[in-house]
């Protein structure tokens, strides 16, 4: 009942309040615990003593409902894409995507594979790309700090873009997922 209506278009918020909230958002990024690819092996050292992402307020949340950030850690197989779309749409606004690895940018070494996406941007709005195969934990922290800066400046609106151009993204997604059985928009 609730999943078949198009999403509300986000409006403009009050300026000062939004600025303060953006500061809070940047300093409390909760990540969905979903290791979509091999890059997730470097997310584990990221939590331990040497890198310790909790210093920046970054924490892992087990459910997408409570998270802000979805990390696409590497290539996406078509079977995973379906789940990732579902997870991404269940995250509440505002939400951000960080994509790790060269394979999300342009396919990387899997450019001719029959089962992995080439350009992630066509299917999901990526806020920050971290290059490398695989990116070192320092690089991932750098990507996080870039995202923080974007949020503070109010420039991280991939989620708005996704809602406004939902038709474009849906068309691309349905091209790959031939047996589309998800709701039109699942919240």
């Amino acid at each position, binding site marked *: 009942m609730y999943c078949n209506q198009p999403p509300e278009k986000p409006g403009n918020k009050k300026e000062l309040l939004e600025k303060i909230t953006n500061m809070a958002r940047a300093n409390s990024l909760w990540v969905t615990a979903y290791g979509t690819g091999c890059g997730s092996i470097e997310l584990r050292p990221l939590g*331990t003593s040497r890198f310790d992402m909790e210093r920046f307020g970054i924490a892992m949340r087990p459910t997408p409902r409570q998270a802000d950030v979805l990390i696409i850690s590497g290539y996406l197989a078509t079977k995973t894409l379906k789940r990732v779309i579902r997870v991404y749409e269940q995250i509440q606004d505002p939400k951000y995507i960080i994509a790790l690895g060269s394979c999300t940018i342009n396919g990387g070494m*899997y450019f001719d594979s*029959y089962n992995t996406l080439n350009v992630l941007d066509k299917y999901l709005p990526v806020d920050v790309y971290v290059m490398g195969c695989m990116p070192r934990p320092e690089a991932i922290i750098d990507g996080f700090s870039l995202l923080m800066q974007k949020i503070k400046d109010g420039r991280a609106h991939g989620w708005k873009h996704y809602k406004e151009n939902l038709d474009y993204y849906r068309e691309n997604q349905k091209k790959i997922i031939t047996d589309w059985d998800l709701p039109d928009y699942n919240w």
Partner: protein
Amino acid sequence: MGVNPATDPKKTTHLFFGPQHPGVTGNMSVEMWFDGDQITKAITHVGYLHRGFEKLMEKRLWIQNFPLVCRICVPEPDINEECYAMAIEELTGIEVPERAKWIRTLVLELARLAVNLMAFGGQGGTLGLGTAAMWGITFRDFVLDLFEELTGARIYHIYIQPGGVRRDLPQGFGGRVEKVLEKIEKRLPELDRLVLNNAIFKLRTQNVGVVKPEWIEEYGLVGPVARGSGSVRDVRKDAPYEIYSKLEFDVVTESGNDIFARVMVRRREMDLSISLIRQILSKMPQGPVATKLPNLTEWRVPAGEVYSRVESSRGEYGYYVVSDGSLKPRRVHVRGPSYVHAVPLLERMLVGANIADVSNIMVSLTTCPPEIER
């Protein structure tokens, strides 16, 4: 046609465990039906990480496949390079210099130590003992530092090549390995006290996730899963490759059949790896580390078929390589140990298990999805 009692919708609950789930090892999922707290049926779903490696390898040159094979197993990539290089050496007859063999064994043992550290802590992590997981991964970082110095990368090393290794050990590398080993050895007893001497850990792992000894041959179980059930099978001992025949060691085996026995096997394998690394460092000969290869862009491997085996931290790893004498391999089939552990064995073990023990069992089998799906 009656309703299957295991999936009767009136009596059982249908649940997807993963792929977005913190308790699942990597990106895989288990679909299960449960009645109360007891699982009545489980189906493993894999394929979320399928990259079509075997197809891509048929489209690449022999040497171009080295960056691909190491990505088949994320926590322990060297085993793939070793296995693939062994298959090529078998087909072409390239001789590996003596020192290269020792270096390869050193790298394999370091990787095994790193994986076991992560798996040992991770077993505590699935039960809520986050401290053990954190410590295990921190100690693993020390080993990754060594890899970074030796190969230039933390995770994917691409260090082993046909006919040797990419470069010699840096100056004073042995001393730094020894330092790291001492550091790990000093801190392991603390981890032991936290995990193995913990009454609740024992309560959760003993007599849980039992692998019956007769399943070993029925399913073809390998590695710590088989050795935790009394098997003494270890490719390093039974069919020694590289220089394992020159090292002194006993196969680690436990007879508990349960998760605790598997954890103990991993723990003792760590000690074994440390002792093997020490032996390698003390006996390593001097000499060249690589054979000169022909022009790699026009390198034709003679036609033939070969199945090469290597013992990884999760068990026997096999590469079935077929060449038709052309520039590219005809077929490379990777047989990861998780294949039988995660699909048929897990489906069988979960029936009758408690819902709280799913990720516990899964981690004790150290299922690694990329090597199932490739």
